[in-house]
């Protein structure tokens, strides 16, 4: 274990054994000569002061940065919560959107429909491909590497590029619609779901699988009744994370699902999610008060979803142990 650690250190750090020896050597005479030769130790004492100052400076820098971060968080969240709560009103939640009440209820329902549909497409594909990568493919297989590379590339594509792609392909097929938006979103969420599911599956000890095989189960049986249940909480945490991303997404949806403020009637009707609603409101600049309230609700929603995911992941860690 120790050898491994030393090997992992970068080259600058491999010197400590040497330098610690030399410093011990130089310290020894100092201890002996402590009483007699003060002239020898004097420069050392002098050089210690700037060093201490440097330490204080470093500590100050770190603390100030942390304070800035804390301040920023308080400022952003506090501002949105304070402004949002004071602008909340029951009219904002009426079932039908009019330019009088600027209701966000249709957008909330639209968000639910959009997220559910996107997940219905993305979650099975993501989880199944994770099953293939973790359970079927030989580790280090070329296909596995290619799929991982593809997932990394997908994860790195900016959401507006997804939006443009969706507008070019899905919109041509289905127009501005729930379906086009959900298909675009599903592609975006795929790498996230896949990677978290794969990690969860890989974290299941091989003993479980061997136990299953030992009892005479086939690979498929092992996957569905042993590994997937054992990894389920990790998988769920990933899916919830994906829900959070879907709820917060704007750029990929503006040009695919459109911005109709009505309740969606079918898969092919245009719909706006809460994030898109928020974007439209603040761009028009007519309903800033309502935008404050919408921002607050959106913040509440995404924070709640993310907290849920963290909670699920934590339970997963506990279940794994």
């Amino acid at each position: 274990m120790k050898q491994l650690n030393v090997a992992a250190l970068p080259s600058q750090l491999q010197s400590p054994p040497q330098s610690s020896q030399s410093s011990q050597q130089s310290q020894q005479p100092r201890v002996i000569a402590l009483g007699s030769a003060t002239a020898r130790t004097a420069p050392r004492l002098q050089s210690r002061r700037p060093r201490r100052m440097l330490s204080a400076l470093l500590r100050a820098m770190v603390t100030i940065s942390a304070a800035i971060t804390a301040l920023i968080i308080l400022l952003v969240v506090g501002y949105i919560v304070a402004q949002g709560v004071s602008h909340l009103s029951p009219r904002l939640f009426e079932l039908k959107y009019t330019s009088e009440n600027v209701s966000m209820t249709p957008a909330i329902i639209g968000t639910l429909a959009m997220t559910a549909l996107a997940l219905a497409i993305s979650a099975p594909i993501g989880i199944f491909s994770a099953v293939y990568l973790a359970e079927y493919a030989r580790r280090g297989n070329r296909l596995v590497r290619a799929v991982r590379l593809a997932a990394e590339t997908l994860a790195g594509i900016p959401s507006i590029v997804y939006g443009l792609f969706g507008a070019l392909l899905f919109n041509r097929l289905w127009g501005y619609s729930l379906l086009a938006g959900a298909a675009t979103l599903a592609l975006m969420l795929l790498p996230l779901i896949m990677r978290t599911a794969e990690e969860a599956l890989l974290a299941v000890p091989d003993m479980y699988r061997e136990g299953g095989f030992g009892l005479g189960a086939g690979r498929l049986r092992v996957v569905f009744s042993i590994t997937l249940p054992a990894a389920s909480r990790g998988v769920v945490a990933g899916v919830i994370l994906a829900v959070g991303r879907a709820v917060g997404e704007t750029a990929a949806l503006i040009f695919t699902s459109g911005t109709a403020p009505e309740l969606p009637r079918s898969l092919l009707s245009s719909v706006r999610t809460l994030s898109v609603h928020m974007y439209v409101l603040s761009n028009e600049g007519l309903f800033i008060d309502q935008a404050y309230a919408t921002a607050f609700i959106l913040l509440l929603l995404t924070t709640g979803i993310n907290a849920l995911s963290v909670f699920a992941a934590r339970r997963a860690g506990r279940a794994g142990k």
Partner: protein
Amino acid sequence: MRAVFLAAACVCMLAVALITLFLLANGLPAFGKIGALKFLTGTLWRPGNDIYGVAPMILGSLYVTAGAVALGAPVGVLTGVYLARFCPRRARGTLRQAVNLLSGIPSVVYGFFGLVALAPTISRVFGGSGRNMLTASLLLGLMILPTVISVTETSVSAVPDSCYQGALALGATHERAVFSAVLPAARSGVTTGIALGVARAIGEATAVVMVAGNQPAMPSGLLRGLRTLTANIVLEMGYAADLHKGALAATAVTLFVFTLGVNVLLSLGRGRRRV
């Protein structure tokens, strides 16, 4: 069933191929018609006259990203170090959760915050409309903070303790040990965090559109408005047709190449770390 799983695994690759194909199929003809060099180095963007030069947006994206990293990365890295090595144990959980909260905020909400809180403040201090390069950089710097912080914290915590203790044994103070022994050992992780921040900043569309001013002209100063590659697509996709649409697809191709570059650098770095 094995075939089903295999097919699912191939969807990812299919998606990448499809996206690349569609972007190229729509973007390349525009590159050809406008002239690739003219498109990339042209400084005028006038869709009305069929003049498409994307250089202002490329510069805009680069400036804003550089600004975001200059503002966000130092604070982010130092906060990550604080969380890993300086924070009192009791405060750590709270601060970490607060950072998570920040990372979960949707970009529209950031944009809205920039629009109603940040831009007016900048405008009051420096004059002008407040929608400019400085505001966009500040907002993006804020948005990349959680990424940089959490990646830095993870990689600093992952440095073996023997490294830190060795430095202490040499007579270094706690601060000195962290900054000259532990942080250098976590260098590749920190770099990864910053690169992820760069990727997020360069790809961000919604928030930037709301605060950057969006003038399609060469960026001419911190307090002037500018337009990024992402903003260019968001603003004009709604009504573009024909060559204009192609030019926007070509903009997306340019953006795609940039983000791909960042990703390649990232995975190269990761590969080196593994060795």
